[in-house]
């Protein structure tokens, strides 16, 4: 523990007892412990930045090697993916399509359900119920995603197959719809929990303002609380998008294993993450084109995630409220 006199909080007291001059001298004469702490904090902060830089650096370095052999335009516009096959094909669009479709399906579940759950928790649920439901929700986000993957494969997709069977459609055992739906269920707690925090942070005075005008509870929720919390809710949606884009195990298990250039969620397909996971098992020689393709795909995923995050951030700023 440092000398009490070195702590800013006690400085005013010290100056009250002794002279201000002396307090200042004391501060200067015991800076070593402070400097050590400061340096330690700096190291901790810097290591975080360094790791990030290293990761991105590795991605970019290997991807650059890849793009020396594969023209970037072919990569971005090709509709067939199979860098490890002979003859190899290097179009990433099928993986992007798979990623976007599963993400979209997931968001179609997670955003409305998560928002409604949040509204209900924040505005309608009695305090006691809310306090018991929230931990359960947060527990749900602690379930390993591989469990969700098998839940999709062994439970949700069979149900979907039966239902599509009723209308005479034969649904495959792997498909993006099932994977996306379960991914959405997985993301609901994140959206609900964060949105609920945002709605509860809306000051009581705004709610009272709405009620005082004669608004019903529902009108207050929809016309005042929701818009007032929109900035925080957008943050929840951004997180949902990032989770969906980066989700791996569910799509590896349930969406299928072949790249497939289609926007039809009823088909099987591979996503960017699923490709990386399925190929990166160590049997690709380091430096081979197949090995480097992983990094190109990883970089693509990073750019996509960044794009949505920046877009979301911009939206957040737009709706930021200073109540």
């Amino acid at each position, binding site marked *: 523990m440092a000398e009490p006199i070195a702590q800013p909080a006690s400085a005013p007291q010290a100056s009250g007892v002794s002279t201000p001059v002396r307090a200042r001298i004391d501060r200067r004469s015991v800076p070593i412990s402070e400097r050590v702490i400061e340096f330690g904090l700096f190291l901790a902060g810097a290591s975080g930045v360094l790791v990030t830089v290293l990761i991105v650096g590795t991605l970019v370095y290997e991807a650059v090697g890849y793009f020396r052999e594969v023209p970037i335009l072919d990569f971005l516009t090709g509709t067939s993916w199979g860098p490890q096959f002979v003859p190899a094909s290097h179009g990433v669009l099928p993986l992007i399509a798979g990623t976007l479709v599963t993400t979209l399906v997931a968001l179609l579940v997670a955003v409305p359900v998560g928002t409604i759950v949040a509204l209900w928790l924040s505005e309608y649920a009695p305090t006691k119920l809310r306090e018991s439901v929230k931990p359960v929700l947060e527990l749900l986000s602690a379930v390993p995603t591989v469990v969700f993957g098998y839940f999709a494969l062994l439970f949700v997709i069979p149900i979907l197959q039966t239902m599509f069977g009723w209308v005479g459609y034969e649904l495959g055992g792997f498909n993006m719809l099932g994977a996306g739906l379960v991914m959405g269920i997985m993301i609901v707690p994140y959206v609900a929990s964060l949105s609920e925090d945002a709605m509860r942070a809306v000051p009581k005075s705004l709610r009272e303002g709405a009620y005082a005008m004669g608004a019903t509870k529902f009108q207050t929720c929809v016309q005042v609380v929701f818009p007032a919390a929109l900035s925080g809710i957008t943050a929840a949606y951004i997180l949902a998008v990032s989770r969906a884009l980066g989700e791996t195990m569910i799509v590896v298990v349930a969406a299928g294993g072949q790249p497939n250039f289609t926007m039809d969620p009823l088909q099987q397909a591979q996503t960017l993450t699923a490709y990386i996971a399925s190929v990166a098992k160590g049997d690709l020689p380091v430096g081979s084109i197949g090995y480097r393709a992983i990094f190109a795909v990883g970089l693509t995923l990073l750019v996509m995630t960044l794009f949505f995050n920046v877009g979301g951030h911009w939206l957040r700023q737009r709706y930021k409220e200073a*109540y």
Partner: protein
Amino acid sequence: MTSANVSNLQVGNAGDRQRAVEVVVPTHGRDVSGTIAAVDSRAASSSQSASLVKAEVRGLDFYYGKFHALKNLNLAIYDKKITALIGPSGCGKSTLLRCFNRMHDLYPDTKYSGEIVLHPDGLNLVGPGIDPITVRMRISMVFQKPNPFPKSIFENVAFGPRLRGIKGKDALEAEVQRALKGAALWEECKDRLQDNAYRLSGGQQQRLCIARALASDPEVILFDEPTSALDPVATLRIEELMRELREKVTIIVVTHNMHQASRVSDYTAFMYLGELVEYGETPQIFQRPKKTMTEEYISGRFG
């Protein structure tokens, strides 16, 4: 507080209350029921003889859980006048004010008993079968801290009219313009109606809240310390505005600023510990208070 003060607080006993009530109720205009009506002939008959009663609080008690916050209040609120509620902090001014628009219904474990009768139709605002929304449709409120919604200026004012089923751009625009003019904000805002309300200054935001309250055509507007978050200039504008609004609407204002009460109000009620100590015309309360407690409070000796 001294023990002398405490003995002055015994307003609950019969004799005192009888006298307090005398000032409270007029005989003219409306047939006010029961014992209250029988009292008085001199007190209210002088300069206020033209004013009608807009609302009557009769034997009102209010409880937060077990806490008895308002104790057997009786007073009449005069039509198109400003009634100020004064008293030391915690005496129940806001609690009384919030009974008028049933704000307490938003929170669990609150209980009203007694009546607040709204004229001309005699609706009991705190009656058990009365929907709070019906009440709030007729009685608006302006809060202590300006609380505009995170929407445009236009949408803030249009909020009430929309809730009341007014549709169509022209009708809404007319309502918004009328309300903003009523709140002396039209000239400042007419070119920036689509701006977010938070871009207005604090005083403008409070006038926007007044416009929002006006747009729903209320019969009574409740003000809960409307200027306590504002600077002196903005405060004077709001006070001026309240005097203007008095032409159209009945106003009840809570204030802990004695000067404000004497500047703006026509009637003043002095409350202490959940009871009504003295109620009368503002000049009388400030110049010739009948109770020692009132005198001590307005001269700043406690509270």
